């Protein structure tokens, strides 16, 4: 009964109920993009069409795609602005790297190490998300954004003073705020401002793809579940949602913690792809970068985020030919793309082309679009 009321409160929930095909379409496109992209890139790499530069970015692209999809859960589906996503990535990265070094002497099969490390990274990141989520999820909008930003900074500062390593007997040692004394360089795992060091890299593109698929699977299923509809109804009309007895804090926390756990997994994958990762990687810039992926891919749109994350990761590398003007070109292109994506004229053109290809759904689509636009207009006002 409550579920049906929920569907009536949430505009998108309603849409889901009326047209269950919406979910299927989104899932189909998201999985399709990932799998086709994977096949094309793999074939290109095997066939020698793709250079080493792009091949080296396969795993980072997967990491950023996962991060964008998981942040979309908070920003798009739960409707909260989070500027600390890189913080959860950092927790996952460090704990995953730590776990991989502990397991390395005991397990020979590397994918198993990656899997266990990733689960460990996800658990600790989820824990961080839980601990942080409890006090701050009462806040809304800009206030939450600022608090999450501060959280991200705290994480980077903590990373700067954490030391892990093995002593001479192979025992795990931990030190806070000072280096571990009497330790071989190669036995250091995490060394303060130097970061995670001496990591054995063991990630493949296939693992990256699996992580992306898993992330999309979790987010889409959550979105389409009873909890997901509750989360979206809170986003769309908090008072109405509360009035039917929804526990707002619980549902917001669910989205936040799941998003943190997924970011933690992506962080582990990132950490195990490079032999060193410095804490500065996880600063405010990375959080904003992930948010840019989400915004450019259209907030709430899973496959849009996948495409945006892939293109924006590759773009700075493509511009290497501009030498000194590389980052400038990247920034200008970003501005152009942002303007173009949100230009109503261009949007109308794209829609016109789309309806030409796909004339049957025209009426249906237009209705949905209008409703959405009215809705967002209200939110802005």
């Amino acid at each position, binding site marked *: 009964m409550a579920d049906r009321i929920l569907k009536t409160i949430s505009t998108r929930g309603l849409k889901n109920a009326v047209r269950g095909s919406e979910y299927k379409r989104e899932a189909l496109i998201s999985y399709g993009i990932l799998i086709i992209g994977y096949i094309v890139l793999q074939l290109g790499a095997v066939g020698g069409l793709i250079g*080493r530069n*792009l091949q080296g970015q396969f795993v980072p692209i997967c990491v950023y795609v996962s991060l964008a999809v998981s942040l979309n859960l908070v920003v798009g589906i739960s409707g909260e602005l989070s500027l600390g996503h890189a913080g959860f990535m950092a927790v996952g990265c460090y704990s995953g790297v730590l776990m991989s070094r502990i397991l390395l002497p005991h397990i020979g099969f590397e994918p198993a190490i990656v899997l266990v490390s990733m689960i460990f990274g996800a658990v600790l990141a989820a824990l961080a998300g839980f601990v942080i989520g409890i006090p701050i999820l009462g806040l809304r909008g800009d206030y939450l954004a600022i608090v999450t930003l501060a959280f991200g900074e705290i994480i980077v500062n903590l990373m700067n003073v954490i030391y892990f390593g093995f002593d001479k007997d192979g025992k795990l040692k931990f030190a806070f705020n000072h280096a571990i004394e009497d330790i071989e360089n*190669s036995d250091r795992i995490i*060394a303060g401002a*130097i970061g995670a060091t001496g990591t054995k890299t063991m990630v493949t593109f296939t693992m990256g793809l699996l992580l992306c698929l898993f992330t999309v699977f979790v987010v889409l299923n959550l979105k389409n579940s009873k909890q997901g509809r509750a989360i979206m109804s809170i986003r769309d009309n908090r008072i109405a949602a509360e009035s039917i007895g929804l526990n707002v804090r619980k549902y917001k926390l669910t989205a936040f913690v799941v998003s943190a756990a997924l970011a933690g997994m992506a962080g582990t994958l990132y950490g195990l792809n490079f032999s060193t990762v410095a804490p500065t990687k996880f600063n405010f810039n990375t959080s904003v970068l992930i948010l840019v992926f989400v915004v450019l891919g259209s907030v709430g749109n899973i496959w849009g985020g996948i495409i945006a994350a892939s293109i924006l990761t590759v773009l700075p590398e493509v511009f*290497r*030919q501009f030498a000194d003007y590389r980052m400038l070109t990247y920034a200008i292109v970003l501005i152009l793309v942002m303007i173009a994506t949100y230009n109503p004229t261009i949007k109308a053109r794209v829609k016109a082309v789309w309806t030409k290809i796909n004339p049957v759904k025209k009426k249906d689509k237009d209705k949905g679009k209008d409703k959405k636009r009215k809705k967002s207009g209200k939110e802005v006002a």
Partner: protein
Amino acid sequence: MKTKFTKFMAAALAAVMAFALAACGGGGSGEGGDAVLKIGSTGPLTGPAAIYGNAVKNGGQLAVDEINAANADGIQLSWQAEDDEHDPEKAVNAYNTLMDSGMQILVGPTTSAPAVAVAEKADADRVFTLTPSASQAAVTEGHDNVYQLCFNDPNQGTAAAQYILANMKDKKVGVIYQQNDYSQGIYEKFKAEYEGAGNKIVATEAFAKDDEKDFTAQLNSMKNAGADLVFVPIYYTPAANILTQADKMGYNPTFFGVDGMDGILTAENFDAKLAEGVMLLTPFVASAEDEATQKFVKAYVDAYGEEPNQFAADAYDCVYAIYNAFKETGLDASASTEEICDAMIKVFNGGFTSSGITGEEMKWNENGEVDKTPKACVIENGVYVQK
């Protein structure tokens, strides 16, 4: 108006996409064949650390141009520097870009964290690597093909102790170090070398935080022990506080720092006059009067309009060291990257020496660490003067 704008946007985006596709298609070509030895380099050319990467880029270019102009042995070099933004992820991308364009030898990366990440890749690909300035010990560790031209962090401690033993043997030495990765490593090596020679450090004190303000306890300990030389292997910010407080106490020993001390003259809220008489180990002083340095500084100023720093000098020396070693291998530039790597490792491990502006008769051990005579300078009238 609007349609015009739209058309412009469409055109701009189309152009960008075309560029993107064109660039994606490239790669995998260019290895061997031509008689130019392709040297690649990575460093931060953009972002907050850009000053280091650009110095390396320019210093290396200068050396390559000189060698090509002289054309003494028929060996021609090419130089390609890529931006790594001081980020390991981007450094791996930059390295892969260089590999795509057929790099045979790597001079870089410029900074430590990117160097640790790239060293692993270069080891797997068998690319001979000589980094000008990445000073962490972990850069060369476990890689037989990675060498450093700068002293690594801990070895600065050894070098400082050797210098003090050779030139200021009768001073009573005290140490103030910071409990961080950089300082602690230097202190331990310094202690081993100095006390190994039968001398005794009269007092040792440590502190933890970067922004530590109060050093009276540490300075009193030095003063009571009668130390007249205080070794401070720390960064210039805490060093500035130490100098200020020592002056207030009326305690005036010789302070002796390492490369982290570089920058003391421009430290914030610090009276640069207090730095008079401070000594530091630094591989390069632009005001040095020897002929090689003067020639390099003049050429650099002519080419780039600014005075070179230590990173430029390191890169300049790297290119000459590679050139000299490559001549000894007897290979020509069409050799494969792996052949060059194996041959260069043999030369570098086989007693090869190269002289440059950051050190005379530099030689390398099998761990890739450099051995060269440390150069010390003293701050006099607000400038570094070489001792």
